[in-house]
């Protein structure tokens, strides 16, 4: 079996999750990192990987978040934090930036989620609560446009219910758009007909299946670092 079960340790920390996502991003990819936890992936990209970061507010070649005197109010990421510019960067306006995204030119985007379904549906923009103010930002465009959409989330909600579900109960961001789901206890591929578990941390596949109440297949071929397909 090619599914890797790390049962000799506990679940991943948030930083470890970011490192696992970074590990899987192919060298030379053009990548958009969503607001929040996905942003932490940047720090784990291997120097020399040639990964180029896109920010939907109009830039390729985005560098790390900066603070203090280096902060430039005209140079921010999608979370409106000041960032830096790397050599080889370019700027473009919002329509061009989202054309780049929607046109399928980005290799990878990493997003957070409330729920992901077994068929790769994503729910990450709206709780559906009656008093919630809906705010979508670029989430639907990112979910629709990138060649591979990677989700980073805890596998269980605060109430203990799974967030990888047969069908999303929250309003959708995109249909069948997610490739992989990175959680603290397991890494899933949801791009095919079956949910395939590629790796677990702190528990076995058997234990996981019990907790998830979801049909899950084991991987039939190994997928090493830097390979999403």
């Amino acid at each position, binding site marked *: 079996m090619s599914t890797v079960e790390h049962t000799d340790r506990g679940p991943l920390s948030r930083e470890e999750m970011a490192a696992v996502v970074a590990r899987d991003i192919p060298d030379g990819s053009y990548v958009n990192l969503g607001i929040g936890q996905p942003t932490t992936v940047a720090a784990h990209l291997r120097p020399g990987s040639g990964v180029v970061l896109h*920010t*939907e*507010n*109009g*830039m390729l070649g985005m560098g790390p978040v900066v603070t203090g005197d280096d902060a*430039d*109010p*005209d*140079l*921010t990421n999608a979370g*409106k934090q000041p960032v830096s*510019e790397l050599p080889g960067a370019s*700027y*473009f*306006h*919002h*329509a061009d*930036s*989202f*054309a780049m*995204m*929607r046109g399928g030119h980005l290799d990878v985007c990493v997003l957070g989620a409330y729920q992901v379904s077994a068929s790769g549906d994503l729910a990450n923009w*709206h709780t559906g609560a009656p*008093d919630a*103010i*809906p*705010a*979508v*930002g*670029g*989430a*639907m*465009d990112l979910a*629709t*446009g990138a060649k591979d959409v990677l989700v980073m989330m805890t596998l269980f909600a605060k109430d203990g219910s799974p967030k990888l579900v047969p069908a999303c109960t929250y*309003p*959708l*961001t*995109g*249909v069948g758009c997610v490739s992989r789901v990175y959680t603290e206890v397991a890494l899933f591929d949801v791009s095919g007909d079956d949910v395939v578990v590629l790796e677990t941390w702190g528990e076995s596949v058997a234990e996981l299946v019990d907790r998830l109440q979801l049909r899950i297949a084991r991987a039939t071929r190994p997928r090493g670092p830097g390979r999403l397909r």
Partner: protein
Amino acid sequence: MSRTQFHTAAGGTTAAEAADAALSASGVASGMTVLVGGFGMAGMPVALVDALIRHGADELTVVSNNAGNGDTGLAALLAAGRVRKVICSFPRQSDSWVFDGLYRAGRLELEVVPQGTLAERMRAAGAGIGGFFCPTGAGTLLAEGKETRVIDGREHVLEMPLRGDVALIGAHRADRAGNLVYRKTARNFGPVMATAAATTVVQVGGVVEVGALDPEAVVTPAIYVDHVVDLRSTSGEEHAA
């Protein structure tokens, strides 16, 4: 016909007075749709929004990526009761209390549009495209009530152009011909909004002579620029634009 007019903070005119003159000349009026540039504070035309508040036009539809932060700028415009409807991608922010309060009180209409669709609908308005099929939002709440079509096996949503009567945007520099360049990610919605509005008003951090901008590097050609407010102070220092 659209020859750019310049409104300069110099010779006894303050930047606020220059902005007021531009807003007055733009013909902005109650009931109009106003496109407001910026992504967060980057590219936000603060001086022009302040002038719009002083202008007094109300019953406005405001199109902008966000719905105001803190108590200034767009938030102040909302607080002053001048806005009937907000069309944006992301109203909910940590400091969007003005919007949040008005929305929850039922005093503001809200149309949430995915950020890329928002940009593309304005691009369509500027480019004379009558509508376009777009996969973003297909199968979601935001496609409800919209025409859809499966193209190449994928569901698309028909999105319509989004026009402005007036656009208020920020840019880095204008030349005396009216061409614009922007600075870093402050470019964002400015170039698209400039094409999508009947009248475009721009605040800039300085105006340079014709010939000082590289024609290869002009981002917004002068044809899209009606009024330029030069925020450079008489002392030669610049305000942020």
